[in-house]
């Protein structure tokens, strides 16, 4: 499918003064796509040039259209010397390739320069004409949609799930090429930005940068299912009701690798092999838990010099087999509706065999249905299922940990790290468990454990949302035991601590409104603490990881009931437990999509990013001091957030996402992105109208229409593997290998490393697992390779859109009035997949942007804080401008994937790289929608309105 790309440069405004003599600028624009460049005329002596250019036309292949960004450079014309660059705009034209997303990109884009930041704006119009079916034997991935949202987007429905998609791309970092010695920082920054964005055109993910060479490991993953497939992984974290049958627990694997030992550093093979190994491990852990799939799956890396920790984690789960069959989702949905609805506890029931438990655990009969067994606590990486019964509210629970490590080189370093990892995992787990108990809760959702490696320390940060699941038993308290019981004053101290802990638990129960129903029946498995056992290390039984040492954390779990204060370390632990201050009243926080127990959101939202860097005093750093510093850093950051957002009370911080990095020896950087959403205290909580919704949902399936999605592509290359339910039983019965629920593994493997040392960017490019070669190009983002069905029929969508107040987010009024009324439309940003009180009517495409900003006048720009503050504000502005140009008014599932900041105050320099992404959408307020539906009472419209309710 070749296409014609058309670009028109309309005007510029607020340009910087480039000619000191006249205080004006002679600006012109270069428009570049691929290897073709066009230029506008020079518009003399103006800071607000009106070029009104002709349509520049590029005739290009659709592969280029998918991969290449449109590059617009604004320059100042100079007769006698070289033209000075004012800045650039990169426009990703992917959204124009989906047949039903945006049709035109038109609006004011900030002109960005890597040295000076935003310098004015330029008005650009971009269109694409695609010629269909030029060669029917050549298939194109043109029009494959990518989403950042880790659930099935609200106006779509999954028809079939094809599988996990990943791609890894490796490239050399332009900043470390020889040419960098002679070119300007600007040229270098732009080369990097271009390369990264080009590579991310194929894949995207995280870029990591350390002191020396830039080594970015970008990785992506997507949908999966079915045991027959190589990796039955799902990156989704929220699922249609009934999709999750059972949840086994968290599975994770880590591996320490040396990057300088790769045979072919410019080829992705070695890295592919590393990841394949880790994924195998995850898969086998899941199997051990009697599960055939992993949901809420994610991969991450932490790099320091040549050492790299690869981590993967997910939640072992048993899925409803009927969802995984080709084209039967629709049918099975209907079927399911006819069944008795599960009482909302099914997913808690253990998937493994009770008699052959993979690890020792306390099992009880489900407190909800009394038929099946449930564990005493449940850890998962997914969002709370919508049908789960929760008592009270949830809260953010964090475990924070630092471990000092000797500085070492290469293998010695890798060994040291791998030796430390199991202990870190254990301690993080213990902390989580203790804090969960202290809150009086029994399950964790959205668990994300991040292990960051630095020169001389390892940092662990785990965040999750604790809840009280009605189906699980009431958690026991925490008991402290002293080591020297005959010492009277010590005894007294212990009992004092015990009292404090008990008081805290009681207080928390009240705070989070946890009032479990009284249960008179006998409980199987007593919550009374058992004597402490030493945690033991197990050899992994999974064939894929011979060298893996495994840690049985389930024993630690039992220990969580008793805290032995036998040394100062343990005292610290208890203290840190008690020093975690609950949020001020009216505030709640969680790291999942929505706060369990609150569903009466009002429409005010505030997304924010907060960054903090602290410098540790390098003298005599001990583990305890380090832990305390790190703990204080996180706690103070949270306190600051509560204070700053106090005007929004009552509100909830949702999707609180902490990222820790160690940019230098004594620096700790914590980046937080979250959204504060207000809610109505007075409205009735917990209105369960699921039944009504479901019947409406079913009604809406009647008027669905298939997206023009390359169905043939998928069905050709990915023959469907209907999942036989019988086999599932077989598999789960045989999986009794004794691997714990919260499975951790570490591995050291450097036997095959090459000795060559060089700097590389590596990127993992998303690609369809089964399509490796040929003309089919699947370019990837974090996205489900799902066959999607639009929830509402096209005509219906059109009526809604027409009536929607598009003008709100519309920047296209080229003849903007000179002043008075505001002309900049509001663009909302949220890390969540929905907007409270609104219905998303259209997904316009993915936004994935990289920016590098550098300064050589750090002091003048207000120091590091001033520099980064301005840069992040600019990044937000550029995201909003791109969304507005697509005709959208919000970004959902927004995430700041990278914020790599480096400074050199002595040289007055700083540099920062930021990668953000999200889904550009059009939303309509539900109140407006009601007006629409009364104005145009079409029968079609009703399902879409009720669908809006489901989202809230």
């Amino acid at each position, binding site marked *: 499918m070749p296409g014609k790309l058309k670009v028109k440069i309309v005007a510029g405004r607020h340009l910087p003064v480039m000619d000191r003599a006249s205080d004006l600028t002679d600006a012109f624009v270069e428009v570049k796509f691929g290897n073709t460049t066009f230029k506008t005329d020079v518009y003399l002596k103006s800071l607000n040039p009106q070029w009104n250019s002709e349509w520049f036309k590029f005739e290009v292949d659709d592969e280029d259209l998918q991969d290449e960004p449109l590059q617009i450079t604004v320059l100042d014309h100079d007769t006698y010397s070289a033209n000075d660059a004012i800045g650039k705009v990169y426009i990703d034209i992917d959204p124009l390739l989906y047949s039903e997303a945006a049709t035109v990109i038109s609006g*004011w884009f*900030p002109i960005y320069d890597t040295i000076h930041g935003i310098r004015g704006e330029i008005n650009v119009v971009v269109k694409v004409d695609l010629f269909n079916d030029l060669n029917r034997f050549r298939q194109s991935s043109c029009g494959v949609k990518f989403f950042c949202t880790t659930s099935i987007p609200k106006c779509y429905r999954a028809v079939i799930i094809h599988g996990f998609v990943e791609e890894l791309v490796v490239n050399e970092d332009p900043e470390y090429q020889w040419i960098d010695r002679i070119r300007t920082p600007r040229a270098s920054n732009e080369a990097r930005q271009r390369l990264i964005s080009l590579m991310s055109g194929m894949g995207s993910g995280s870029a990591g940068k350390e002191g020396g060479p830039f080594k970015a490991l970008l990785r992506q993953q997507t949908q999966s299912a079915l045991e027959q497939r190589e990796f039955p992984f799902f990156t989704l974290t929220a699922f249609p009701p009934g999709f999750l049958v059972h949840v086994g627990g968290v599975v994770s694997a880590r591996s320490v690798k040396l990057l300088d030992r790769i045979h072919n550093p410019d080829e992705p093979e070695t890295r592919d092999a590393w990841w394949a190994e880790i994924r195998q491990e995850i898969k086998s852990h899941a199997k051990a838990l009697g599960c055939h799939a992993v949901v809420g799956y994610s991969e991450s890396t932490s790099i320091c010099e040549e050492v790299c920790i690869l981590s993967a984690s997910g939640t072992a789960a048993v899925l409803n087999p009927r969802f995984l069959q080709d084209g039967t989702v629709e049918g099975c949905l209907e079927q399911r509706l006819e069944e008795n609805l599960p009482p909302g506890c099914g997913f808690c029931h253990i998937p493994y065999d009770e008699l052959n438990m993979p690890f020792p655990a306390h099992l009880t009969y489900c407190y909800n249905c009394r038929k099946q067994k449930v564990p005493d606590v449940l850890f998962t990486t997914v969002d709370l299922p919508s049908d789960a019964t929760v008592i009270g509210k949830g809260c953010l629970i964090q475990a924070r940990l630092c471990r000092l490590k000797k500085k070492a080189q290469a293998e010695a370093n890798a060994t040291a790290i791998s030796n430390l990892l199991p202990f870190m995992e254990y301690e993080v787990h213990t902390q989580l468990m203790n804090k969960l108990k202290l809150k009086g809760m029994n399950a964790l959702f959205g668990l994300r454990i991040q292990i960051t490696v630095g020169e001389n320390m390892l940092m662990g940060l785990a965040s999750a949302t604790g809840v009280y699941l009605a189906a699980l038993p009431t958690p026991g308290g925490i008991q402290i035991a002293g080591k020297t019981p005959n010492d009277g004053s010590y005894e007294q101290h212990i009992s004092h601590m015990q009292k404090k802990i008990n008081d805290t638990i009681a207080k928390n129960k009240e705070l989070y409104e946890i009032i479990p129903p009284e249960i008179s029946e006998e409980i199987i498995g007593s919550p009374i603490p058992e004597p402490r056992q030493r945690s033991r290390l197990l050899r992994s039984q999974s064939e894929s990881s011979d060298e893996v040492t495994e840690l049985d954390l389930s024993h630690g779990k039992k220990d969580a009931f008793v805290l032995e204060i036998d040394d100062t370390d343990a005292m610290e632990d208890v203290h840190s437990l008690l020093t975690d201050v609950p949020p001020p009243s009216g505030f709640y926080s969680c790291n999942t999509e929505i706060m369990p127990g609150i569903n009466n959101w009002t429409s005010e939202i*505030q997304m924010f990013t907060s960054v903090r860097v*602290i410098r540790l005093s390098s003298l005599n750093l001990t583990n305890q001091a380090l832990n305390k510093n790190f703990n204080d850093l996180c706690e103070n950051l949270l306190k600051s957030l509560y*204070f700053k957002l106090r005007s929004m009370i009552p509100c909830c911080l949702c999707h609180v996402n902490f990222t820790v990095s160690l940019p230098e020896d004594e620096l700790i*950087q914590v980046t937080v992105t979250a959204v504060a959403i207000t809610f109505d205290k007075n409205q009735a909580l917990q209105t369960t109208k699921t039944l009504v919704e479901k019947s409406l949902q079913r009604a809406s399936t009647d008027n669905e229409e298939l997206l023009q999605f390359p169905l043939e592509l998928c069905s050709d290359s990915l023959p469907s593997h209907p999942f036989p339910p019988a086999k599932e039983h077989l598999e789960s019965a045989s999986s009794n290998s004794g691997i714990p629920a919260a499975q951790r593994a570490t591995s050291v493997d450097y036997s095959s490393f090459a000795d060559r040392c060089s700097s590389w960017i590596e990127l993992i490019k998303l690609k369809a697992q089964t399509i490796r070669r040929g003309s089919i190009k699947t370019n990837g983002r974090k996205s489900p390779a799902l066959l999607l069905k639009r929830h509402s029929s096209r005509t219906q969508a059109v009526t809604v859109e027409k009536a929607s107040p598009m003008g709100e987010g519309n920047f296209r009024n080229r003849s903007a009035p000179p002043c008075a009324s505001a002309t900049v439309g509001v663009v909302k940003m949220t890390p969540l997949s929905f907007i409270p009180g609104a219905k998303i009517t259209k997904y316009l495409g993915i936004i994935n942007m990289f920016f590098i900003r550098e300064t050589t006048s750090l002091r003048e720009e207000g120091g590091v*804080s001033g520099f980064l503050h301005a840069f992040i504000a600019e990044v937000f502005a550029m995201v909003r401008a791109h969304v507005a140009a697509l005709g959208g008014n919000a970004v959902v599932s927004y995430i700041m994937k990278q914020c790599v900041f480096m400074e050199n105050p002595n040289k007055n320099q700083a540099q920062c790289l930021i990668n953000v992404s999200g889904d550009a959408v059009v939303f309509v307020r539900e109140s407006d929608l009601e007006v629409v539906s009364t104005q145009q009472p079409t029968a079609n419209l009703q399902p879409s309105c009720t669908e809006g309710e489901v989202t809230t």
Partner: protein
Amino acid sequence: MTSELDIFVGNTTLIDEDVYRLWLDGYSVSDAVALRVRSGILEQTGATAAVLQSDTMDHYRTFHMLERLLHAPPKLLHQLIFQIPPSRQALLIERYYDFDEAFVREVLGKKLSKGTKKDLDDISTKTGITLKSCRRQFDNFKRVFKVVEEMRGSLVDNIQQHFLLSDRLARDYAAIVFFANNRFETGKKKLQYLSFGDFAFCAELMIQNWTLGAVGEAPTDPDSQMDDMDMDLDKEFLQDLKELKVLVADKDLLDLHKSLVCTALRGKLGVFSEMEANFKNLSRGLVNVAAKLTHNKDVRDLFVDLVEKFVEPCRSDHWPLNDVRLFLNQYSASVHSLDGFRHQALWDRYMGTLRGCLLRLYHD
């Protein structure tokens, strides 16, 4: 553990009105934190001083970045970097351009030049307003002055269009610009009892009646080196005012005028005898003020003269305000009955404004 970097950036820019106030008032971050602590915010919110420090720094940084845009408010509306709801934008602009009564009284009528700027130290010490805040206010006056100086059309409209100020504030700025342009003396000890509001009131009347723009007819030749419509007093009008001198120079006319006023006011004024005794002095004062306005120096002293020649004599005789009003009304109206006097329109243009000004200036 020291904090190297500490920032918070919201998609919607957070504006704390209290901190903005402190920033505008020119307090340093540490002073602002101390003041916030004193306001009891820590007790209300349970926050710590460190949190307050970090929060204040954040806001100060944001305001610092916004300041550049506030210098040209329409830019604030069109910029893309800070997403701020329109009501908040209006608040930011309005507060930024707001000024202290004490400060404006010090610089009103002074040339907005470097020389005056150097005196800001003294003004700061005298008024207790921080030097930073004085500078901001002074720069605001100067910026508005520079922008509207060369413009045609209504002063208030121009200011409102280019600075997006509220009607009230735009009117105040029009007065400031008008005073700065005509350099009216306002600092004399005699004038200290007058508030900025008094002067602004007079400025508005003068702009409405005594400038070229006030004539209401478009200049016949647009290319002629026409003075700015609203900024400068109508030179021709000032020249013509000399003609009024006949009212006091011609003894018959003066006597006639006096008898007309006295006849009309007899029994109505509490201070009739004083008025009768003082009539000639007062009339001479008012007419001479008019006649002198051809000289720039005398224009500058307009308010000093008015207070010396009219307000002070009346005040020393304890005229009630109502009597002043009755007198001035009668005084202006009676001229219409003077047959020998041919400049009725001129008189009305002069006296109409002057009457309003005098009534406003007449207080303790």
